[in-house]
């Protein structure tokens, strides 16, 4: 048998003096495609980055033997779960509402320019790209600027590049996050195609809908990697969220009423002549539980940004929030006070130099980072909720040194800390494992039982809270249907 493609022997990685991986061994032979799973924070991403050369490894513990028998580039390419793009001046200081503003001069490159440069750097042929773009439904955003893309569209851009490149080893970290159902299926078809041409895959995450070419399975536990069978890869999540909900959340946020929380009449959103929301009519009454669905780029985030006071064009529309027409003298802080929001964009642009404790406490003030002293009552509530989410040990840790899943838990705690009247949960469980997701959805069900209004966005049908009653489906910026979902789920 020929030498293995990847040979890892006794790999130890420390992160800020803390042991993440210890004496880890892994052999990847030719024609093997692996799934690498493990609980949140087990070191999956660290290992993936080490293989890709993005984390320094000292004693030659990772050997890569690229083959010369192929035209595929002798490269490991890593697609991160998260990707931070830069503006034209090299800065990355964005805020999540920025994509909704309209500014005469573009500050970020377009997708076309970005792909063009990537293609040039790697000597790729432009005509090979069309197939990938159409499979992922991506051709329509080719002239958008990076700042205008939704989180799912950013994810796809990274995937498009990787598949176009066809490296000898492709590592995909939680590639399905943020993708709609159809895109997930088409991604698997594309991955099978490049795998047939010789690209070997490592998919990182606890995924269930995998491409058929995945033929080996491994799990990291306590810093050590073990091969497992495909059936036994149900992960035992840590004991979290199984305690009783803190008492201060255990009550209705406001007296239940029949008040209209949201009333949109023929709402339109247009950027330089291009309409992204068309004649939206939608009413949400206090206490209703809505599921908001639609493909990547169908306008879901834009719709939610209107509700959260994040979109400047709210002022030009016939749109009532909490009984007031937008632009009748209310401030966005009056609005945000009543809303608990989590979204991929919010996480993406959140101030990662805050500690977990500050992050959770900032939910009382709807700020990204904590800028004032919350006082002793709120202080105690933050402590209690951090305990409930199992984050007490990390409360003084900066967000940017935690794995994404822990960051996400802290942000979920931030979302509910003030017991808001309305919860807007846009893919709240991205990056969480299955059990954490179930626990969180159970918590949502419980909170909603006290009369909280809910708008939930989720791409995975199997991972939704059970309290959802109604569904609004968007397609190309229009309301495709509004229906009761008791029968359809």
């Amino acid at each position, binding site marked *: 048998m020929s030498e293995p493609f990847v040979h890892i022997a006794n790999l130890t990685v420390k992160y800020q003096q803390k042991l993440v991986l210890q004496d880890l061994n892994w052999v990847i032979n030719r024609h093997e495609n692996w799934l690498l799973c493990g609980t949140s924070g087990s070191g999956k991403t660290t290992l993936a980055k080490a293989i890709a050369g993005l984390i320094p490894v000292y004693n030659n513990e990772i050997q890569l033997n690229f083959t010369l028998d192929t035209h595929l580039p002798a490269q490991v390419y890593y697609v991160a779960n998260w990707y931070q793009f830069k503006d034209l*001046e*090299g*800065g*990355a*200081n*964005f*805020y999540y*509402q*920025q994509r909704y*503003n*309209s*500014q*005469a*001069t573009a500050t970020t490159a377009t997708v076309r320019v970005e792909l063009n440069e990537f293609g040039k750097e790697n000597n790729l042929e432009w005509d090979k790209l069309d197939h990938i773009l159409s499979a992922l439904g991506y051709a329509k955003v080719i002239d958008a600027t990076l700042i205008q893309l939704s989180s799912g569209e950013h994810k796809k851009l990274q995937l498009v590049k990787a598949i176009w490149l066809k490296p000898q080893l492709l590592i995909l970290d939680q590639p399905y996050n943020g993708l709609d159902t159809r895109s997930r299926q088409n991604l698997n078809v594309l991955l099978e195609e490049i795998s047939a041409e010789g690209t070997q895959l490592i998919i990182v995450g606890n995924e269930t809908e995998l491409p058929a070419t995945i033929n080996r399975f491994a799990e990291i536990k306590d810093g050590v990697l073990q091969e497992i069978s495909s059936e036994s890869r149900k992960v035992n999540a840590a004991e979290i969220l199984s305690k009783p909900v803190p008492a201060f959340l255990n009550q209705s946020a406001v007296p239940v009423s029949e008040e209209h929380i949201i009333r949109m009449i023929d709402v339109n959103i247009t*950027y*330089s002549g291009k309409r992204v929301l068309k004649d939206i009519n939608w009413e949400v009454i206090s206490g209703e539980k809505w599921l908001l669905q639609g493909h990547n780029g169908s306008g879901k985030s834009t719709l939610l940004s209107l509700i959260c*006071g*994040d979109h*400047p*064009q709210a*002022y*030009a529309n016939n749109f009532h929030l909490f009984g007031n027409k937008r*632009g009748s*003298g*209310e*401030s*966005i*802080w*009056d609005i945000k006070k009543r809303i608990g929001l989590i979204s991929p964009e919010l996480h993406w642009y959140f*101030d990662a*130099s805050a500690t977990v404790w500050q992050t959770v406490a*900032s939910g009382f*003030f*709807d*700020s*990204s*980072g*904590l*800028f*004032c002293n919350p006082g002793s009552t709120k202080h105690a509530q933050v402590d209690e909720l951090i305990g409930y989410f199992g984050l007490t040990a990390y409360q003084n840790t900066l967000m940017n040194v935690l794995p994404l899943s822990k960051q996400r838990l802290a942000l979920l705690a931030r979302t509910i800390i003030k017991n808001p009247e309305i919860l807007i949960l846009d893919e709240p469980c991205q990056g969480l494992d299955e059990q954490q997701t179930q626990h969180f959805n159970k918590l949502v069900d419980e909170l909603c039982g006290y009369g909280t209004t809910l708008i939930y966005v989720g791409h995975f049908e199997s991972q939704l809270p059970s309290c959802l009653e109604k569904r609004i489906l968007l397609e190309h910026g229009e309301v495709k249907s509004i229906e009761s979902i008791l029968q359809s789920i």
Partner: protein
Amino acid sequence: MSNYFNTLPLREKLNQLGVCDFMDSSEFLDGVNALKGKKLVIVGCGAQGLNQGLNLRDSGLDVSYTLRKEAIEGKRDSWKNATENNFNVGTYEELIPNADVVVNLTPDKQHTAVVNAIMPLMKQGATLLYSHGFNIVEEGMQVRKDITVIMVAPKCPGSEVRAEYVRGFGVPTLIAVHPENDPEGKGLLQAKAYCVGTGGHKAGVLRSSFVAEVKSDLMGEQTILCGLLQTGSILSFDKMVEKGIEPGYASKLVQYGVEVITEALKQGGITAMMDRLSNIAKLKAFEISEELKTIMRPLFEKHQDDIMSGEFSRIMMEDWAAGDKNLLAWRAATGETGFEKTPAGNVKIGEQEYFDNYTLMVAFVRAGVELAFETMVEAGIKPESAYYESLHETPLIANTIARKKLFEMNRVISDTAEYGCYLFDHACKPLLADFMTRIDTDLVGKNFNEGKDGAVDNRTLIAVNEAIRTHHVEIVGAELRKAMTAMKSIKTA
């Protein structure tokens, strides 16, 4: 019109220069109420205009924009900025007569023409708001007596004003009321409300005066902020190339170094910046920065004197009248420097390496900040005002150099700052010629500690630390920074 400051008796000069009160957050409990329901009309829709307007509207205020007819008909960028964000836009004639507050956010150079055009249209008892006092103080604009004249000056670029607001914070802000134009005594209430509307009240507000703002702002931007950063960058780059350091590396070290170094300044003042050096490098940086202070002090004093006497604005306005002849020539010359024309190399420079290999810039920054602060305070400007216009703004300007070098810095800052920057730079370089012949690559380009024994004398080190830590700018800065704890840290390149 004549220079307003020069018409004042000495007593009143000192009085206005001395307005400086760091405001308690309880001063802002009334929120935006003083402007609620009032019509705010912003003149101009560039970066400050658009971003302040977005914040004010999101705070529940009624905002619209007025532009010159040509800008509206030509659908210029300012018109696009305003209309595409769904603001009402109209001509002066359409919007000014109904405005309760007219917000002048046009460039300095246009102020006289703009104010002369809008003043006859303004209704009785309206308010005129500026972000910079040049027009009132240096050009001596006389505003109709029934009009209230106030200033709200966010101390950050427009994009930051917006970014910090939506994060739930704000940027440090100066507010002022013009004593000649406060007929109803409502100026301060409106200035505070406007400041709340832009989010500034959360990040520390300094009550100032038009006079104090202008005289300190001009001094800061000409000397430490833009002038010295430009001089130091060019001299450092040229020295490295002369001594055989790879130009790509030199370009990168200079472009990003000043940002990384001043980030420490932002977080913890000169003390924190100096503490990032090893003991031996700190002693050396202290020694040469003392030398730099001695060499440059007369130049700093000349700039401050010319600003106070009005000489600076006189010659700059002469250049305006000559079609910006000097400004444009100097701008072109800056574009031709070796630093500007050499792209940053594709080398990785670690965060600590920027300190260890660029000790010279640490010395430049310490010397410049302390000198600017000392000179301003000696001229009658209060220490808090002097802090804002020296130490506080240095990292903000350094960010612009990191983005696209000196060209970018000079594009972002006002024409007034740019003019003063070149003026300083041209006088400063010859002053430092002899000093620079004694500088080698251990201070710029290579690790200062390399090949040296790290030992220091305890008593020398203690004395140097003491001198750094007890400087007046450090005492004042520590107090003011408490109110700005949440300023974002930058990412290194």
